């Protein structure tokens, strides 16, 4: 299926870009006119993914993060990629409450939040090369609109 719109954003792994990235994703998605709540879900998931890149992939050093968003009739794909240290054990990293950095007062809930706020979450990673988080959000409100026509 061809997306009806697509965008690509590259930015530095600075924590001030967390809000920048989630606002961009939400504002791009708003073309589809989803609900405020659905946009909040997208914002939250993007925030988690970008935060992971900054804290874990680049460990607060400078690196590039790319975000690709694709819009479909009633859904959105988001791909967030870093070229940092990668994840050795994805299964472990995705476990609720697991954090590799407990000293930072992190909750270990990042992937769990992405998983429950989005409809699809796929993580691919290669140690030393980087990580890509692929997510899909289905805007159920748009489906319902079609039904009522």
């Amino acid at each position, binding site marked *: 299926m061809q997306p009806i719109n697509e965008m690509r954003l590259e930015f530095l792994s600075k924590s001030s870009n967390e809000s920048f990235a989630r606002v961009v994703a939400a504002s791009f998605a708003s073309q589809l006119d989803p609900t405020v709540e659905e946009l909040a879900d997208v914002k939250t998931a993007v925030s988690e993914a970008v935060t992971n890149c900054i804290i874990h992939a680049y460990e607060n050093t400078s690196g590039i993060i790319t975000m690709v968003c694709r819009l479909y009739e009633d859904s959105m794909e988001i791909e967030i990629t870093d070229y940092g240290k990668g994840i050795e054990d994805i299964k472990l990293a995705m476990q609720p409450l697991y954090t590799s950095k407990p000293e930072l*007062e992190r909750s270990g809930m990042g992937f*769990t939040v992405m998983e429950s706020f989005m409809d699809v979450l796929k993580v691919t990673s290669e140690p030393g090369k980087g990580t890509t988080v692929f997510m899909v959000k289905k805007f159920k409100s748009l489906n319902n609109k079609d039904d009522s026509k």
Partner: protein
Amino acid sequence: MRVKFSSKGNILTAKIIGELDHHTAEYIREKIDAEIVKASTKHLVLDFTDTTFMDSSGIGVIMGRYKNISKFNGKTVLSANKKQIIKIIEMAGITNIIPLFKNPQDAVDSLLSND
């Protein structure tokens, strides 16, 4: 992003205004910790009713403050009214140990009636 403090007796209310993410978490942490070490504070209300965004960084902030307040036998309670924020709080299972109220007044009242 800012934190507004108010107190009633030994109850400190920290109102977190704006967005709480990894970027702002450290500032919020420092602000609140500097207030709770003051002798007048025993219990803490973390008020998220004016928080416009929160991700899992907020869970870390809540749990960290809860630990600090508990060291001195104080209680922590929360107030939040936005769906997205309540979802994050409940997902982490925080409400099993820290009560959540719809508004800061109810949160403060719950601590007063406990004393």
